[in-house]
């Protein structure tokens, strides 16, 4: 049970969002700009960064929902997402994305953990200033989202299947449509 009263049937961030519409709108717009706005990093790459950071923060809801969104951007490649969370250096992703995940992983530990060497390695693989900026911001934003979801003790289903439809909506509809937070069936 969450630390505060939220509507039944809304998992993770959807519960607190339902009772705080003013901050919800700002959070939704932020997520949409970060993960789906025009960018040289694909939406899949950006959702992968979000899911990876969320897994490092051990946030069930965020890693499963954004992992599903990433997979849905990649024709349902859920295995790749699992591999990335386990060991991204062994996953079939670009070397550039690997260097960006290293930066994201450092941000998750603490902003000051990012070194000039981490950034240089990303540049060597072709990462632009904007891509480095966005990687750090997505990682930092997801530390915020993870702490929001966990800090209020929200209900977080652990069955990955429950997140597939949510992932499809996140990937193909986005974060700012008003009806994406309808109550879901409990497992």
């Amino acid at each position, binding site marked *: 049970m969450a630390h505060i009263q939220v509507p039944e049937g809304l998992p993770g961030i959807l519960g607190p969002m339902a009772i705080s519409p003013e901050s919800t709108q700002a*959070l939704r717009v*932020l997520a949409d700009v970060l993960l789906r706005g025009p960018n040289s990093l694909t939406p899949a790459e950006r959702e992968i960064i979000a899911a990876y950071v969320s897994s490092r923060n051990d946030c069930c809801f965020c890693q499963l929902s954004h992992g599903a969104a990433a997979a849905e951007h990649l024709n349902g490649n859920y295995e790749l997402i699992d591999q990335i969370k386990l060991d991204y250096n062994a996953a079939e992703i670009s070397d550039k994305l690997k260097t960006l995940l290293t930066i994201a992983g450092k941000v998750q530990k603490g902003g000051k953990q*990012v070194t*000039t060497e981490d*950034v240089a390695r990303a540049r060597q693989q072709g990462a632009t200033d904007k891509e*480095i900026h966005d990687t750090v911001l997505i990682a930092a934003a997801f530390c915020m989202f993870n702490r929001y979801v966990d800090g209020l003790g929200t209900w977080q289903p652990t069955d990955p299947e429950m997140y597939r439809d949510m992932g499809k909506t996140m990937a193909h509809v986005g974060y700012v449509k008003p009806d994406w937070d309808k109550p879901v069936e409990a497992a």
Partner: protein
Amino acid sequence: MAHIPTPDGLPGIRGLFAFRPDTALPLNELVDVLLCGPNSLTPGERELIATYVSAQNDCYYCQTIHGDCGSASGWR
């Protein structure tokens, strides 16, 4: 020096906002809602929470700027 080139003379997050206005906008809207919007917690109380967390994270810019905002709000 920042890891990416930001305009000279802009400290902390301000340099990053100038570098990337598209993400600055939703971030500023979020901060405005959280710290200044109508709330039973006063703006001073909310700035105090922000300053405290930033101090715990050892982030010099954020703890200082939100400390100043809190003082201006009278910490009430």
